[in-house]
Structures are given as C-alpha cells and as structure tokens.
C-alpha cells in the first residue's frame, strides 16, 4: 500500500496534535481534578422523596463559606426552591430524580450534570460573582419542561 509523502506528514502532524490534546485532557482529568461529574451511587427513585438525604433538605453550612444542599429534580421543579448564598461560597449539590431524567444546569457557570433516576449525581461550584443565577433543566422531561427552573442569588 502506497502512502503519499505529504499524506504521511499530514497524518503525523494530525496525530501529534491529537495526542497533545488528549494529554492535556488527561492532566486536567487526573491531576487537576477537572474530570466531569461522575458520582456513582444508586437510590430507588420511588424512595427519593422520603429518603434520609432528600426529605426536608435545606442549605447547610458545613465549613468556612462552604455549603451543601440535597436537591430533588422532579417534574417540573427543583426542590427546595430558590437559594441564597454569600459571594465566594462553595456549594456542593447532591441531586436525584424521583421520576424521569432531568438536567441540572446553572447559567454563566460550568455546572452541568445529568440527573438520571436510580442514581445520585454530585457537582460542586464556587460562586465568586454576585448576581442572580438561573438553574434550569436542560434535558427534556415532559410537557412542562420549559417551566423547570429556580434561581440562586449570590449576595
């Protein structure tokens, strides 16, 4: 099989770029802890509402300007409702769905995770900029999908 000189060059350069790119992704994933949210823990969707983690959950301070909250993503709302936190706060979100698959996206941040029934999702973010952020469901979840949104106010 004959491969043209230029094609060899083209493929070698392409491969090098690809390997460098993969290398950067690997460093970010395994050394800088920038990997995508990948929590692996199961929960029975029919027991989410009564479960220890999610029943009557509210924002809890667990450290110096560090908070955690368990949120239920359900048709068509996030429970509990709107949140308020001080600027610079780090929030750890724990999410589960009692019904269908939802998305959890906070605008103007990189917070973006799927909430699949049967599994618990976790994602954290530090809110440095004050303002009112929109939390929205970005996975179609039924005819009221477009109403599924909350806010986080950072003071």
């Amino acid at each position, binding site marked *: 099989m004959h491969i043209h000189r230029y094609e060899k060059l*083209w493929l070698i350069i392409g491969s090098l770029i690809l390997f460098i790119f993969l290398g950067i992704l690997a460093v970010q*994933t395994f050394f800088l802890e920038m990997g995508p949210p*990948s929590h692996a823990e199961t929960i029975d969707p*029919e027991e989410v509402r009564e479960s220890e983690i999610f029943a009557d959950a509210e924002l809890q301070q667990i450290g110096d300007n560090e908070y955690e909250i368990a949120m239920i993503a359900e048709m068509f709302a996030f429970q509990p409702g709107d949140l308020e936190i001080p600027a610079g706060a780090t929030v750890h979100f724990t999410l589960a769905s009692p019904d269908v*698959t939802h998305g959890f996206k906070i605008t103007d941040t990189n917070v973006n995770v799927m*909430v699949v029934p049967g599994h618990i999702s976790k994602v954290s973010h530090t809110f440095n900029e004050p303002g009112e952020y929109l939390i929205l469901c970005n*996975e179609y979840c039924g005819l009221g999908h477009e109403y599924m949104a909350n806010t986080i106010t950072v003071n």
Partner: protein
Amino acid sequence: MTHITEAPIRHKGTAVNEDAVAGIPRQDYRLSLANLSIAFIALLVGGIAGLLQGFVRSGFLELPSWISYYALLTAHGVLLVLVLSSFFSIGYLYAGTSRVLGGLASKTIAFGWTGFGLMTVGTVIAAFFILAGDANVLYTFYTPMQAHPWFYIGLALIVVGILLNCIGMFITYQSWRKRNPGQLTPLFAFFSNAVFVLWVFASLFIAVFVVGFVIPWAFGWVPTIDPMMGRTLFWAFGHTLVNIWMLTSISAWYVSMPKIIGGKVFSDSLARVAVVILVVANVPGGFHHQILDPGLSVELKFLHVIQTFMIIFPSLMTAFAMLATMERAGRAKGVTSLLGWWKVLPWSDARFFALIVAMFAFIPAGLGGIINASNQINQVVHNSIWVTGHLHLTVGTTVMLTFFGISYWLIPYLTGRKMTRTLNRLGIIQTIVWASGMLIMSGAMHANGLLGSPRRTADTTYNGHSAASEWATYEMFMAMGGVILFIGIVLLIYIWAQLAFFAPKGDTDFPIGEDYRPADASPLFMDRWAIWVALGTLSIAIAYVIPLLDFASGHTPGSPPFLMP
C-alpha cells in the same frame, strides 16, 4: 457540465426501453425508487415540523392545543434522523451497488422489499402516534418517559426492516465475491457493505433495548426499567447512526466526485483503510453523549474519550484525499500554478457544487464534534442548543447537501431522464439557499448555546429572567434560518419532482471513479469482513463490557413508567 451535454436528448413521450435507460435491472431500480420516495416524504413532513418549531421557540407562533412543541420535535427527529437517512441510504446504496456489481441478487430484492414493507409500516405507525400526541418522548425516547406501546412497535419494525436490508446487501456482496474469486470488490460496493455492517452493529443495540427492555415495560409486563442501561444502549445506536450517514455521504465523495470533476480516485487502498477505521472504531463514540451521566467512572469516561477520537484519523485521511483528488484532476488538465486547479473545478455543476459545500461544512462540524467529545469542555456545551447547532452542521448540512447532490444524478439515472440546464441552475441556487439558511440557523444556535440556552425547550424566557434575556435575539435568527431552509426544501422537492416525472428522457450516468493507478489498489484481505467485524466487536467490548455488566448486575433500582403526556 458534461452530464448535461454528453448524451443525446430523447424527446418526451418517446417510447423508452426502461431496462436499458435505467442502466440497472428494472427490479433493482423500482426498489431504490420506492425507498427514495419515502425519504422525500419524510423530508417534507419533518421539514414542516422543524419550521414550526423555529416559530414557536422564537415566540412568533402559538400552537393549537391539540399538538405540542414536543410532538413536533419528536416528529422532526424521528422523520429526519431515522426515517429520511435510512430510506435514502438504502435507496442510494442499493442502486449504486447494483450499478457496480451488475445487478442485485434476487434474494436481495426479496429481502429489500420485505425490509421496505416493514420499515414503511413502522414509520406510519410511529408517525401516527407521534402526531396523535401519544409519543411526546423525542427521538431519543429516554426511559422512564413512556410513549404509547405501539410507538415502540413502529420503531422496532423500522429496525427489523433495516436488518433485513443488511442481509440483502450482504447476499449480493458475498455472491459477487464468490463469482469473482481473486478479485477486489469495487470501491462503491465496499462502502455499501461497510454502511450495512455499521447498521447491524447499531441495530443490535437498539433492538435489544426496544424489544428486550422497552416493549415489555411499555405493555406493563415488567414493572420497571433501568434508565442508564437505556441511555447506554440508545447512544451505542445513536452515535453509530451518525457514522452511517457520514459513511454513506463520503462514499459519494470518494467514488463519484472524482468522476464528476474529470479526475480519478486518489487511492483505493487509503479509501478502504478510512472506511475500515470508521467501522471498527465507531460504536464506542456513543459514550461521549454520556460524559455528564452519573454511574460511569472518570477513568471509564476518559477511555471513551480516547475511543471517540479514533475516528478523527479517517476524517483527516478523507480531507487529504478529497483535496488531492481535486488537485490531480486540475493538474491532468494542464494546470501548473500552485492553486490554479481550484479554479478549474466544475463549479457550475450542481452535483459537484452541492458536494463541495457539504465538504466545507464538515470542517466546522468536525471541529465542533471534537469540542463536544472533549470530556471537560463537554460540560460547557452539553444539552445546550450548541449541540443542536452541531447536529445541523453535520447531518443537516454535510450529510443533507451530499444527499441532495447525489439525488441530482441518482433520480435521473433511475428514471431515465436528464438534468436540464434550468434544473442544474436551480440545484446550485438550492445549495446556496440551504447553506445560507444553515449558516444563519446553526451559527445562531452555536452562539446561543455558549450563552447557556438549553436545547429541546419550547420556550426559554424563564419568566423574563435576565440570564435568559440575551437569548431572544438568537432565537429570532434561528427562526429566520428555518424559513430560508424551508424555502430550500420546497425548491428541492420541485427539482426532485421534475427529475422524477417531467425532465426530458435521456441517459444519465451514475458516476463511478476509476483508480488513479492500479498500484494503489488494496490487498485482497481488505474484502474479508470477518476481520473487521471481529475488530469492531473487540472495540465495542472494550468500551461496553464494564458499564453494561455494572448496570445489569441488579444493584441499580428500576424506574416505573411516566406517560408522556
């Protein structure tokens, strides 16, 4: 423009020997035309749904109460990405294979018609329940959302029909090999076979999901279903479908484009290597749709990212081969300047023009794909309307424009007619209209997605929230692009109708390129598909065994159904 002036024009109404005119046996072209007809109806209905979606989302239109935005979205997705693409690829690949292998085996025709029948019935059933509002689950039908059970039966029939078409293609391919020992199969037939091998890989996943899990659950025979298992099986199918379209499209780039521009196939062996890599490495790419899913470890996701990126190699090879083919064609015409060959390309030939615009669209489309599959960067764009913009560049522009370009020779080839100068000019205008509409719509979607606007959402005003306020402008542009695209569809259907029924009779060729030189032909073992299927299975096993065993181990609680609506 050779295709317009070369052959003698026969006048309308002259008695024509259909067998001779079609260039392939009558039974073969009837099967192809039947498949293409359904593809065209799907384009029209799916296109109307898309147009209405643009109006609703931008706030120009409120739908009547009997149909929801999501029913339209489901129809748009199912009809265009599944129905249009599968019927078109079958119609086109069967015709081309018949052309290069000297006719299809009679068993192939039988499998083809049975498959066609099942797919058509399945399409009608699925479309009925979608438009009746009983299947608002979108084309991904993520469980535990549940549609009417017969919607899934419709989908299952389509998949079984596709599988029968696969068997049909394998029969013709293998019987040609048996009759021609020691000979390499023609490149076009190799492409066809590859597409149908991918169809088998894809269909098996979706068949297991729909028949094994969803249908028993939808009829209430089993109480629960595992949504993560469903997402994994669906995307093994869904992403493979993407490369089924791509492989179908690049068959025209590799095989027909050289002939159209008066050149030759750059390298038979490198073309086949690109095809084989696409087939072997493709399926695990499905996992990049699940980068933000729970229940899959970071390490596993990184493995999937590497596997997804393997298909960058065949894309780079294709880019090189296309430009090299064009340069050589120009040099053969005596062009000596560095870039002069670019000017002598047949820009006024609609067949070429549609293909080259499609190729150009693949540059941003491919780059967007790399971004989407890039682990961390995925978090920025996942489920935003950026992804919809990406899909409309890949399938909507690259694949569709290639299909349109193909139809400019395929339809007259099958109906024994000729493209007139006027139709050719309309074809060029159609390409420009389509590309502009997509540029506006897809460009606005990409930008809007980066600002955070979600995909698949009927209304994104969120009670006038400030974060959502800047999205409105882009949604207006999306609707505008949609209107331009719909004009493109109307224009295209006019051209198709002309080519099918009214254009003057004549001989149109199905362009098949010759090799640049015999030394570039592949070694014979390239035709031994057992090797490639085994390697493909291995790459699937590397990606899927761990997560599927994990989901199947029984520790994930199942989900009861939620009817939509």
